[in-house]
């Protein structure tokens, strides 16, 4: 960096410096302006990249693998399918016992209550709450750091689907209350007298389940 010319101080000697500085500064100014313009498009690029990767924008965590619609649907199905199968079995057993065996029918109804309650709990664990989001983020982060695929448990529902899921849970809780009351019946007649109200409550649950299935673009469970 030393130079023999230092100390002479002529105008010509500063000319090169001026040119270098002007050119580099102009380029830098252009780059900064370009950078600022580019930065204004960050939001749009973010949305485009999220959409291109099939990610749910509301579930996106910067710098981490995203939750896709497919993952969300798979998790919901993983909860609803076994619960539906279990309920179908218990309802079939109740249909057999409701006219001949009060104790057995009440046991079937109690089993239904347990199944419905477990379903609601599982569904509540997928809703878009701060706790669930933190747990999902931790699972994603662990999977990322260990180089393993993101587990299905990390997929939570979007705020929109969560609203339907909460309605579903509410409807299901009404059904659970009714079933529990029915299970305390003193006679088969009293037991069967609940059936219509139970059917109405079940229909409300089915309606919400269809709405979720539609939102998740997954087939509604049979039964």
């Amino acid at each position, binding site marked *: *960096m*030393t*130079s023999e*010319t*230092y*100390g*002479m*101080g002529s*105008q010509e*000697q*500063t000319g*090169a*410096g*001026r040119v*270098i*500085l*002007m050119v*580099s*500064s*102009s*380029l*830098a*100014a252009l*780059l*900064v302006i370009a*950078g600022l313009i*580019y*930065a204004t*498009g*960050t*939001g*749009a*690029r*973010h*949305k*485009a*990249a*999220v959409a*291109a*990767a099939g*990610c749910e924008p509301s579930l*996106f965590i*910067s*710098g*981490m*693998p*995203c939750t896709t619609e497919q993952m969300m649907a798979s998790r919901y199905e993983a909860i609803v399918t076994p619960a539906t199968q279990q309920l179908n079995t218990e309802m079939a057993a109740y249909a057999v016992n409701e006219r001949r065996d009060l104790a057995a029918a009440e046991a079937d109804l109690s089993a239904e209550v347990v199944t419905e309650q477990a379903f609601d709990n599982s569904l509540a664990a997928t809703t878009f709450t701060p706790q669930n989001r933190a747990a999902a983020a*931790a699972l994603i*982060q*662990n999977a*990322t*750091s*260990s*180089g393993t695929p993101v587990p299905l448990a990390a997929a939570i529902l979007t705020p929109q689907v969560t609203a339907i899921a909460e309605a579903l849970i509410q409807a299901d809780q009404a059904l659970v209350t009714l079933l529990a009351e029915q299970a305390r019946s003193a006679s088969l007649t009293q037991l069967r007298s609940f059936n219509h109200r139970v059917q109405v409550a079940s229909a409300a649950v089915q309606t919400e389940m269809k709405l979720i299935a539609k939102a998740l673009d997954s087939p509604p469970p049979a039964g």
Partner: protein
Amino acid sequence: MARNTVGRWTDERPAAYDYQEVPYGGQDTYEPGLTPSAAIETRQPEKASAPKRADKSRVDEWMEVEFKFGGSRIKRKAPALILLGLPALVPLFFMLPALVTLNSNTFAVSVDDTLGTGAEICLFLCLLVTPMVTLTGQRWFVPLRRWYGIMMAACAFGDAIAAGITDNFAGGVFGRLAGHVFELMGFIMVMLVIPLLLTGNPWAQRKLGKYWKPLHRLIYVIWGFLAAHLILLEGFGFERGSNGSGFAGDGDPIFHQRLYQYSACSVFLLVLRLPPVKRWIAARHKEGRMWLVWVTVLPLFALFVFGFIFIVNEEIFKGMDSFTEHPSGE
């Protein structure tokens, strides 16, 4: 003749020295990576007859004033230097929990990002000292050059040691350190830092004499190797689709590209080191037109800040992941 704009140029100053390598007539703005503040005097014997460092700037003088602190008196620049130097400890601080718990996963996944990026930040801060001396004429912060150099070395060694132990590459320790070309670049940088660290003290400077200065120009070689390291590590940013080195969706692929960050920072650091540019700045100062210098340099500095912000952003996010021992492999 010369103006007394910032208290450095005096009428007694000989005209023959108006064009110094350092615009303000200060000592050297030459760039040793690990120069101790007390060991700045590196003039050759034939230059001994040249005037000593020009009068200190007003800020330098203000910084030299002592004040009472507890039972002792310390200079004003001491707390300022500590405050400016503390951030250089942050990369090592981020890795502390993983070190205490011997969390090999955190080391394997994120030490490269946390300490590697930390070393890059310290290198740029070390290299920033000279341009800031050139622009401000102040020298009170020159000791930071040595400190940032030491912290760069500490981060680089930590990165290399952790990579040598925890990386998954084949070939034993050496394979993990130099088995890929980008790693070899990093390994060479670490090797080059060693002599700078060992000789970055007044004793070594006295012993090495005229060889000390060329030796410490190795910092420029490290600077260059860093570019090669980053190019080989991530390419130019077009290889991984639309998002640079990261996962999909953050929308800032170019800003997160390490090579571009490096380039944005390096332009300012490089241009302000060029002798013709320094002469031009000195001339403008002599004319009392420093405003022209500031206006001209502003875009370069803005570009530096632009790049540096994203490097620091990277360090904070990766560092926090390391600190919480949930390392991100992004």
